[in-house]
């Protein structure tokens, strides 16, 4: 261990090098332990506790919170929570898919722009990113207000009553979610598309490929790294999103994020909230695992 070695041009002993490495690692490790590992462990502990009469934590070990989550409540068996859980997954999937479908044409459009205006276009995509999401959600209130053409058109088609706004509704939730997550898909995808090797596209055309075949063999494999990052960055936070569905979906379209927020907020049932959080985290990890297994060789982040 005390043998002299040359490390990037420096003469040093292995022992000293190890000490220096630990010194550099310590702040990061402390940070992770303090703000990720410990709260995680506390969350696991709390999820097995119970609720007192006044919303305080009762340290009695039980699986009650988990059995309640899958439907065995005090009012008999109901699938409400499971339904909300699956609806959350569904909304996250649809949001991700639509964001991907919209991102491809958007990215190709921007990538085709001359270099001078390209970054202007990218900035336009990024600007909503810098705006608070509550403000963005309220902006949708305005757009979907009864006085504006969208709500009027829907009323004319008898989809909603005369003079009603288009929110709260599933449509409003999807609009809010997609506008929220589109940059998360578009930006990593753009970096892949900007570096696209167009000779592969030409080779596919030269070999009589249909547009679908060109996309599958010349474009998709090349953009997969950026696409993967975009999908992960979208689906994970989308599963736990609560501001947008709360404001734009209200009680009509509750997602798991809202349910958790409710437990820690008005219901004051920390233990149940922790259990739902654990369930969400496990689901997210499972979906990441499945995704990684399906796309072997693709680095997630």
């Amino acid at each position: 261990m005390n043998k002299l070695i040359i490390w990037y041009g420096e003469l040093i002993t292995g022992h000293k090098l190890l000490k220096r490495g630990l010194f550099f690692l310590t702040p990061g490790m402390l940070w992770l332990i303090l703000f990720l590992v410990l709260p995680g462990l506390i969350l696991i502990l709390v999820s097995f506790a119970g609720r007192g009469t006044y919303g305080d934590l009762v340290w009695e070990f039980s699986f009650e919170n988990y059995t309640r989550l899958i439907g065995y409540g005090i009012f008999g068996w109901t699938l409400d929570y499971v339904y909300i859980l699956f609806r959350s997954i569904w909304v996250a999937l649809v949001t991700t898919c639509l964001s991907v479908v919209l991102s491809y044409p958007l990215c190709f459009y921007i990538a085709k722009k001359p270099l001078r205006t390209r970054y202007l276009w990218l900035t336009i995509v990024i600007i909503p990113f810098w705006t608070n999401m509550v403000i963005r959600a309220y902006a949708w209130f305005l757009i979907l207000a009864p006085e504006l053409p969208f709500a009027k058109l829907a009323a004319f088609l008898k989809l909603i009553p005369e003079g009603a706004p288009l929110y709260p509704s599933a449509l409003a939730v999807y609009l809010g979610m997609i506008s929220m997550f589109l940059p998360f898909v578009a930006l990593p995808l753009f970096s892949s598309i900007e570096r696209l090797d167009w000779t592969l596209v030409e080779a596919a055309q030269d070999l009589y490929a249909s547009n679908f075949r060109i996309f599958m063999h010349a474009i998709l494999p090349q953009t997969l790294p950026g696409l993967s990052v975009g999908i992960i960055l979208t689906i994970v936070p989308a599963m736990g999103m609560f501001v947008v569905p709360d404001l734009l979906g209200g009680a009509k379209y509750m997602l798991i994020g809202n349910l958790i927020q409710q437990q820690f907020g008005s219901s004051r049932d920390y233990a149940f909230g922790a259990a739902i959080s654990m369930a969400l985290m496990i689901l997210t990890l499972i979906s990441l695992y499945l995704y990684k297994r399906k796309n072997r060789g693709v680095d997630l982040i």
Partner: protein
Amino acid sequence: MKGLSLKGINKTFGKVHAVRDVSKDIHSGEFFTLLGPSGCGKTTLLRMIAGLELQDSGRIILDGEDITGLPAIKRHINTVFQSYALFPHLNIFDNVAFGLRSRKVPGVEVNKRVKNTLEMLELGEMTKRFPHQLSGGQSQRVALARALVNEPKVLLLDEPMSALDAKLRAQVQVELRRLQQKLHQTFILVTHDQDEALIVSDRIAVMKDGQIIQYGTPAEVYDFPKNRFVAEFLGSANLIEGNYRDGLFHTQIGIFELEKPPSWEKGFIAIRPEWIRISDTEPVKNGLRATVTEIIYRGTNLDISLTPGPIRLRTSTYSHIKIGDELWLDLAPKEIAVLNE
């Protein structure tokens, strides 16, 4: 007519006139080469034939059918790209089968044709490998197989040898020539390598600034260059400027006799280094007394520079020439090429 006809092709990129009014008939079964320095428009011309670039004006006719407006996927023409452009996520078999599968050829036939093509190019062992596991020479053969398996009417090759090292390149050039003669298919090669063009081609079109400036068999183009550019681009040449009067060519280094009188009074002649002979005695005609200033040993021969001139000549390594020697050079009239432009 069988073959490919280009009629008045023009192409501009902004202010650059990349291809100017190119017309040429390329016969079926011919190995045709577009030779020129980078930026001469040869690759642009090739891409227009492939359908990957649209010409501003002019028509392209393949076996009597006007394919001017057809996109690449409708043209019975395949390309070997300079970078090979193999699909990295597909193995060699699937890469080669790509074109057949695009056209929905039945699976049994795909298997048979891909197998035959891979065997013809000695790639039978590596069907399951992926492009990143191949050497440069193997990638090049896979790219060739991927194009040839479709039995195109014209095969386009865009500098396919530029990524290979010199020794492998020389070997592949001969193989490519043999393959073309065996298949008797039309090959159009784009290259800036004059040796390559001379080795493989039936006919060479030398391009400069978007135009074909000379066209002919390799021997015609090499032996009778029309102008300074061709004389210097293909091989090397001693260019001598002078005036033609009274049936003789007067230059600064001497007076020479030409086989045929040129059409001009003032101009250039070219003589290749390997066409100049060293003589012990003064030659009957066109002798030149010169002093050796530099000797470069090249293994197979010696390259010698002499004054006046400087004149460069190429001779066998067997000769015992030293710097400072005075020699008689024989610039025989039949070895002198008169440049017209």
